[in-house]
């Protein structure tokens, strides 16, 4: 049987609708692919699937009856990894869950269960890192602004954490890799897009945009970071393991 590739819009609902389609037409060799990610599946027939909230909800509800919340959360986390081919691993996993009579979502002897769990763990680690590595800078408009460039699309996962923590200050966390951000206006968090001046340097603090006290607190923080280090115990390998170099450019304490 010829392989069929389902093309979707990159949204989680869109992905779930592909799953819906696979079951509706009882497809055997289906692949799912994000339309914004180029791939060359040569000999396959393509089918464009439009996202539909109702269908997506049906799949999601069905999953919830056959798998624990931990497992369905893992599916969502793994999806946000945006890793090439993750949709197909998830399709395998979801198919395995739906086709079995018993609950099998924690069968760690199954490849797709284990793989999903591992990818979800990576995403969860990145989420936790962003909760740690976001560095707010106070702008002249009294908004705390931070830019990030996470490996995975974790903004939807960290929104709640920052909302409950910084309830009394306005803040923005902007993913410059995916060009969208979260804005909290003391009431709600909204998703938004921003335009930045050309040549805007995200790793620097521009005095045209940021408040004067911002520079003082960065200096205090940098000096605190230096003073609290014990040189006799220097261990750069461990340091880099905890704070991989790709995160350094937006950490004020790691600026030269």
């Amino acid at each position, binding site marked *: 049987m010829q392989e069929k590739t389902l093309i979707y819009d990159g949204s989680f609902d869109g992905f779930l609708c592909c799953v819906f389609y696979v079951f509706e037409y009882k497809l055997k060799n289906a692949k799912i692919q994000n339309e914004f990610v180029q791939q060359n599946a040569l000999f396959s027939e393509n089918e464009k699937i439009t996202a539909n909230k109702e269908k997506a909800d049906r799949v999601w509800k069905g999953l919830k009856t056959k798998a624990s919340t931990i497992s369905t959360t893992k599916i969502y986390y793994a999806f946000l990894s945006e890793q090439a081919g993750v949709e197909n691993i998830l399709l395998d996993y979801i198919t395995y869950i739906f086709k079995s009579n018993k609950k099998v979502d*924690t*069968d*760690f002897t199954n490849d797709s269960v284990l793989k999903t769990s591992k990818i979800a763990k990576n995403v969860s680690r990145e989420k936790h890192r962003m909760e740690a590595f976001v560095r707010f800078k106070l702008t002249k408009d009294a908004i705390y602004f931070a830019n990030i460039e996470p490996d995975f699309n974790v903004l939807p996962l960290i929104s709640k954490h920052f909302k409950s923590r910084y309830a009394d200050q306005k803040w923005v966390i902007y993913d410059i890799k995916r060009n969208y951000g979260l804005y909290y206006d003391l009431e709600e968090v909204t998703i938004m897009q921003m335009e930045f001046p050309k040549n805007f340097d995200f790793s620097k603090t521009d005095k045209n945009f940021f408040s004067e006290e911002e520079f003082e607190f960065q200096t*205090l923080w940098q*000096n605190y970071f230096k*003073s609290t280090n*014990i040189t006799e115990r220097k261990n750069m390998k461990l340091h880099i393991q905890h*704070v991989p170099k790709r995160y350094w450019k937006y950490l004020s304490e790691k600026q030269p």
Partner: protein
Amino acid sequence: MSFTRTLEKLKILADAAKYDVSCSSSGSKRTNTNKGLGDATGMGICHSYTEDGRCVSLLKILLTNHCIFDCAYCVTRKSNDVKRAAFKVQEVVDLTINFYRRNYIEGLFLSSGIFKSADYTMERLVAVAKKLRLEENFNGYIHLKSIPGASDELMREAGLYADRLSVNIEIPTKSGLKLLAPDKNFDDFIKPMNKVKNEIIQYKTEKKIIKSTPKYAPAGQSTQMIVGASGENDFQILKTAEHYYKNYNLKRVYYSGYVPISLDNRLPKIGTEVPMLRENRLYQSDWLTRFYGFQTNEIVNLNHQNLDLDIDPKLSWALRNLHEFPVDVNTADKRMLARIPGVGMKSVAKILMARKYRRLNWDHLKKIGIAFNRAQYFLVCDSNIFERRDLTAEKLKAKILKNSKSKYDKMLSPQLNLFS
């Protein structure tokens, strides 16, 4: 706040506070209910790591490094010729709030040298915490030091604002304390620790009846012991830790490899290496007792007073107890699964879930993520291939070491050469 003056103080008082290793910011469950600043509900967060690989979670500073005591192991001791400084209460509050707003920290860890008297010092620590909670509406994490000898009344107040309180034992034996900190009285350490323990129990009981009872030190108490300063062995250290865990319900005991900072001939010379490997083995043992169901006596005892440096304490226990092995992964209970070298608690949980579906073989176990090099000699699974020879402990150890690479190889090599 005068920026240059604060900067100078921060450098001095952060430098003096860094030998306190506690960094935990979890376990508090303090929610942001009043639209204030901060939330300490989830797990702790390490916001950064210093170049020594230690986590930066809290703004860890001393209120002052003026001190009336002369403890040999401490940089802040009276006789040490260092720059002294003292923060004002408001300065600490401003630093904490502004660092927190920028997501640099989870909260404040405030300790202090003892100036004038224990109560005078404790009063000021409490004043900082009180101001943060009541005036700044701050719900982040606050860890305060309990000053040895502080009054019960102050300790009771401290617990109402702080998430965690700690008194550092520093020296595990009474004789060591007498030698290195002659001005300090052992009972002075115990008094605030005991008071806080009793308050925690009382508040918890009351909370069961009256829901609005305020939180009292919700993240509990901890302490710290210096390792390698006063000649104590691992048996003494771990037994002391066990004593405090049991009798004072401590959440954590920290072990701090002694960093030589003094020319005093009662202490290791400056330039002596920090016993980091030993410290690591102590933490591993601590974990075994807290999470793996081990008793301290199984790890160290009169016949085995020091931990092995070349192998981890679980493997060391297994080699001394070969009669308990091999363990059948498909039938063993959780307790025994947790005792297999190379199998951590995460793998134990996965094994327990996965074996409901089918009998597990090597392939499954490797994918689940066990450390095969160690585990292979200690378990049987659904496979015909397993270690059938009756190897002695020495043979097994040699086999495992041959195929493993430790990050501590460099530190171990002179020793290994002696025996190989």
